[in-house]
């Protein structure tokens, strides 16, 4: 914790707060009917994307999932454009053509949210391979869920990354559920480290509510990858605050499950307590960020609502570079 500068700590908090407020707001606006389509929110899991992406620079790349807003924000994708994208507007990150499930910004090293469970890990092998061929020290991070950890594409990619000795980190965000199905049931290993071992890579896990735990765990794995030590596997134990997608009644969850996590282990609260207890930051520093972010998110919604729908010509463009 002490190794992080004040600036970095503020950045970490800002990132988590941005994700949280973004998601809470999308939840509210969706409920009001302003947002179309399938929307999967990342609230509750902020420390994961943040603790990992804090280590990354623009040459490092990540692949995300259907639950991708948090990863986008942590990788530096513009929030104003993201909100517009979720509204399907022409000012969106993807000109409104992708929506929540496909937000991307390749310039920022964000290879896209992905509508296909397990779609990302093979792509990340390609990122790792690119870095290896170009002899950079860049890395690729595949974020995926506990459900996705059973998809063949994910499993194959773990093997490939070891065999090709790629600078890739496989991050399973185990939020306990794939849709309504429990990960305790659907994941056959007792411990994800066992599965990592079955693919010849080190595996570790960490408390996904604790930014510092994630940060430290990722640090080691990323350093290993950067120095040619090959892939690693990290399980982040986390919780999602909302339903699988917006509209999910969540009757499969335990009574007060989320309330309890929110009350006892919310990542923002835990962070605030740790850094203020240790006198690294003042409450006022954090309050200031809260205010800034609230304004930013307000602005993003205002701009998204005001923006134009894509015009009809857009239907036929962007299919090919040339055809």
């Amino acid at each position, binding site marked *: 914790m002490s190794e992080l500068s004040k600036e970095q700590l503020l950045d970490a908090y800002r990132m988590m707060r941005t994700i949280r407020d973004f998601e809470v707001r999308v939840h509210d606006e969706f409920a009001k009917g302003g947002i*179309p*389509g*399938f929307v999967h929110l990342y609230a509750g899991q902020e420390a994961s994307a943040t603790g990992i992406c804090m280590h990354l620079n623009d040459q490092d790349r990540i692949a995300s999932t259907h639950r991708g807003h948090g990863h986008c924000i942590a990788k530096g994708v513009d929030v104003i454009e993201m909100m517009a994208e979720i509204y*399907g*507007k*022409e000012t969106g990150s*993807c000109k*409104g*053509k*992708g*929506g929540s*499930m*496909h937000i991307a910004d390749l310039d920022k090293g964000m290879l896209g949210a*992905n*509508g*296909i*469970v*397990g779609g990302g890990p093979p792509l990340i092998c390609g990122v790792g391979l690119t870095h290896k061929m170009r002899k950079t020290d860049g890395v690729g991070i595949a974020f995926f869920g506990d*459900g*996705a950890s*059973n*998809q*063949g*594409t994910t499993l194959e990619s773990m093997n490939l990354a070891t065999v090709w000795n790629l600078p890739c980190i496989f991050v399973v965000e185990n939020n306990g*559920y*794939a*849709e*309504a*199905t*429990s*990960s*305790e*049931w*659907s*994941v056959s290993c007792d411990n994800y480290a066992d599965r990592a071992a079955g693919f010849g890579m080190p595996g570790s896990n960490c408390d996904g509510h604790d930014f510092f735990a994630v940060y430290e765990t990722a640090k080691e794995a990323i350093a290993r990858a950067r120095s040619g030590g090959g892939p690693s596997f990290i399980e982040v134990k986390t919780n999602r605050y909302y339903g699988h997608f917006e509209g999910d*009644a*969540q*009757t*499969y*969850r*335990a*009574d007060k*499950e989320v309330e309890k996590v929110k009350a006892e282990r919310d990542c923002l609260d835990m962070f605030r307590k740790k850094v203020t207890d240790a006198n690294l930051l003042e409450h006022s520093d954090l309050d200031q960020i809260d205010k800034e972010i609230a304004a930013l998110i307000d602005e993003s919604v205002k701009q998204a609502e005001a923006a134009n*729908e*894509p015009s*009809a010509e*857009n*239907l*036929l463009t962007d*299919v090919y570079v040339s055809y």
Partner: protein
Amino acid sequence: MARKITYQQAINEALDQEMTRDESVILMGLDIVGGTGSPGEMDAWGGVLGVTKGLYGKHGDRVMDAPISESSYIGAAVGAAACGMRPVAELMFVDFLGVCLDQIYNQAGKFKYMFGGKAETPVVIRAMYGAGFRAAAQHSQSLYSIFTHLPGLKVVLPSSPYDAKGLLIQSIRDNDPVIFLEHKMLYTMEGEVPEEPYTIPFGEANIVREGDDVTIVAFGRMVGLAAEVADKLAKEGISCDVIDPRTTSPLDEESILESIENTGRLVVVDESNPRCSMASDISELAVTKAFSSLKAGVQTVTAPHTPVPFSPALEDIYIPTPDKIEAAVRAVLK
């Protein structure tokens, strides 16, 4: 038969009745129960849009959730079918065929032929398809042309609650692998559906509207749009034969050819991308087997050769509309 239920209820009822009738019918998919292993309610979802809701309560362990491993649970359905079960596996969205197609086309679809006739694989793969849900490029496709291209598979596209029930029961009783595709925008469509089980044979088109001026062949959700256009044009004295083939494989060529021979004019309405599509397939049928009857070039109305856009504004112009169908009918009449 006055009872009206939705397309979605019709599917649920077909599954329920067949499971009751035949012990070898089993269901598997992702969250088709919902809540498996979870601390809360079991049968919490009954499928991502609730289509299988309640079946777990009635049939217990014969309705199974699976890990997110389409190749293996759909392959398990194929293997179980080869052992005499009648599994109905749900591929949540047909867009996901890319992670499991091998088990469908190289295994299920070819066993009988490769094994010299000595195999039967009565598996049903149910999947949602179609645009209109603002679900973007990876959850909105109409990929039935791909399945239709592949020998060994049967492909079913119900366009109404009545057809959904009868065709699904037929699919389950059928002894070949069947791809049963449900348009997600039709789930809430209501229609008259008999309570008792019944089957609709494969390869028999439904003549949705009768007419002598133009033949319109339409698939799935497009059938309703075509009928709407036919009704509108009927008021002007233009009479359209609206044909819903109901299954693309096998295809009721006869009904289509008969109609073309009568009208001499053909419009094909297909929600899928245009290349190597059902629109192509029916056009080919006309020009290879009914050329001498054709009085005009065929008109096709399809989605463009693009992925499905997320933006509602763009998606609305991506999908064939009644206006475009009407324009096509007028064009073949010119």
